[in-house]
């Protein structure tokens, strides 16, 4: 039995990241959207407007927390306060799963608030497997790791990123959040084959797919989440869907955030690509109004 089936991971359809400029509109008008992803750390506080908004949003939509600061690959000890807050958040919103990134975010107590790449080798793999097992044991919900975009590679790497991620997921028995834009960006930056990457990911472990826009900086692509999803990324999305089947899909847009209409149209475009690729089975999970 595959990972998604064992953990009864639902297909939530196509959603978007819930970001500050749209929260008032979403809470007031409750527009049609199949689900929202929230940045976990933005909702860790024990009070205030973010927490109040969360209580209202969870009454109308499925929410999934997506973290940026767990530092699963960090050499520093896991931040137990962060983990406790994530567990509490997941329970409060009845999250079907939680996710964070395959990366590290700081060292020696300094948090650089970035998704830094790891050296992909056996020693790092052993280290991350152990930490993922611990996190999964404490979270109480399935946990998935996202492939992050990266701009540098280490001389100490002895494995391809997709080999590392696939073996990590198998050994730690966790899910994968497959960000096809990140695959595209990193493939460009490091010169690997994006399609081969998609084909090598264990399909039954993919609990969610991310789509986003990026920025061409000339010598490299930067994962800015500031634009429409590029056509080449949509092609990779089709390829990932053919391998993974009906998997929850999420459109991220975090910089130069557009109007709600533009964002929801981007989700509708992803939905149409999904329906075309998967056929009628996907269409049965119709574009639906809030709960």
């Amino acid at each position: 039995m595959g990972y998604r089936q064992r953990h009864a991971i639902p297909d939530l359809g196509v959603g978007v990241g819930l970001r500050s400029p749209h929260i008032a509109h979403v809470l007031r008008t409750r527009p049609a959207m199949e689900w929202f992803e929230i940045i976990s750390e933005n909702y860790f506080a024990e009070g205030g407007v973010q927490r109040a908004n969360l209580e209202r949003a969870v009454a109308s939509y499925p929410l999934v927390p997506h973290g940026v600061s767990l530092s699963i690959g960090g050499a520093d000890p896991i931040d137990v306060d962060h983990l406790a807050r994530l567990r509490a958040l997941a329970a409060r919103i009845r999250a079907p799963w939680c996710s964070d990134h395959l990366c590290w975010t700081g060292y020696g107590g300094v948090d650089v608030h970035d998704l830094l790449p790891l050296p992909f080798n056996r020693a790092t793999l052993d280290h991350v497997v152990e930490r993922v097992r611990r996190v999964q044991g404490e979270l109480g919900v399935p946990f998935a790791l996202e492939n992050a975009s990266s701009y540098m590679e280490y001389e100490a790497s002895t494995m391809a990123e997709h080999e590392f991620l696939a073996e990590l997921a198998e050994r730690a028995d966790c899910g994968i959040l497959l960000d096809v834009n990140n695959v595209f960006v990193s493939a460009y930056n490091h010169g690997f084959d994006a399609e081969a990457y998609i084909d090598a990911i264990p399909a039954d472990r993919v609990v969610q797919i991310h789509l986003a826009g990026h920025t061409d900086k000339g010598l490299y692509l930067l994962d800015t989440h500031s634009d429409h999803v590029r056509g080449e990324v949509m092609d990779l999305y089709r390829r990932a869907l053919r391998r993974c089947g009906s998997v929850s899909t999420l459109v991220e847009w975090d910089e130069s955030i557009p109007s709600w209409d533009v964002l929801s149209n981007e989700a509708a475009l992803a939905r149409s690509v999904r329906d075309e690729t998967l056929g009628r089975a996907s269409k049965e999970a119709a574009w639906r109004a809030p709960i």
Partner: protein
Amino acid sequence: MAGADLREVQRLVVEAVTRPEAIDASGSPGGVSLLRPSARGMTREDRLEVYRDQFWQRHVPSLAEDFPTLRAVMSEAAFDDLLRRYLLASPPRNWNLQRLGAGMPAFVATHSAPRYDGLAHDAALLDWAFMEVFDAPDAPPLDLRAVASASPDAWPLARIAFLPALRHVATAHPVATLRAAVKTGEPWQRPAAAKSSAVVWRDATCFLHAADVDPAAAQLMLALQNGQRLGDACASVAALHPAISAEALDANVGAWFQQWTANGWLSAVEV
């Protein structure tokens, strides 16, 4: 346990990406030697510089957004310089970017450069109070029925608790009015020095406010927040203000209590 190699890799990369100077071939930090050049023509230095640039682009604007009043009372160049010096002295040590500026008021106060004057320190204190109350824990509203039925004799023994999302700010300049003008884009003038006490709080609808309060009222609030019973707290305030008669203080306390209740500042009264 992480291997020594992974720790060393991460130490060197953090050292490189938090440094203020751009990474180039003229002075490569240790982290550069860990990397491969890209097939597309980026050098090792170029690749590490992407992350160093992101570090400063992420944290400087985040801090600037947290200190609007401080920004208003400084020149743009001095403010930017202050933020960068602060980040060098106090690099982020928490996942929560909202806590990044926790040390800013003390940093402004102790900074050696003469341009960081008392007004800048007061502005930083007020701005930080807003940051603290933004996501402080919620508290249930005060049940006024318990207060209304209390015997007058019981009041001196009462313990009064204020909202977790409430802070006192004692300053040498009236910065609460200044911040309100800055936030609304109204014209403002640099205020003259004048001792001020302000309360910053988050109301039940999550709006943030600041209000000037009588210094004696602020002292009473602080005594109550420190756990003193109302009678003892009033005696503490009276000792600080011998010119105020006991009757006048009693009348003031009644009016202050009404103001605190009306503003929703109280979370519990144990009487």
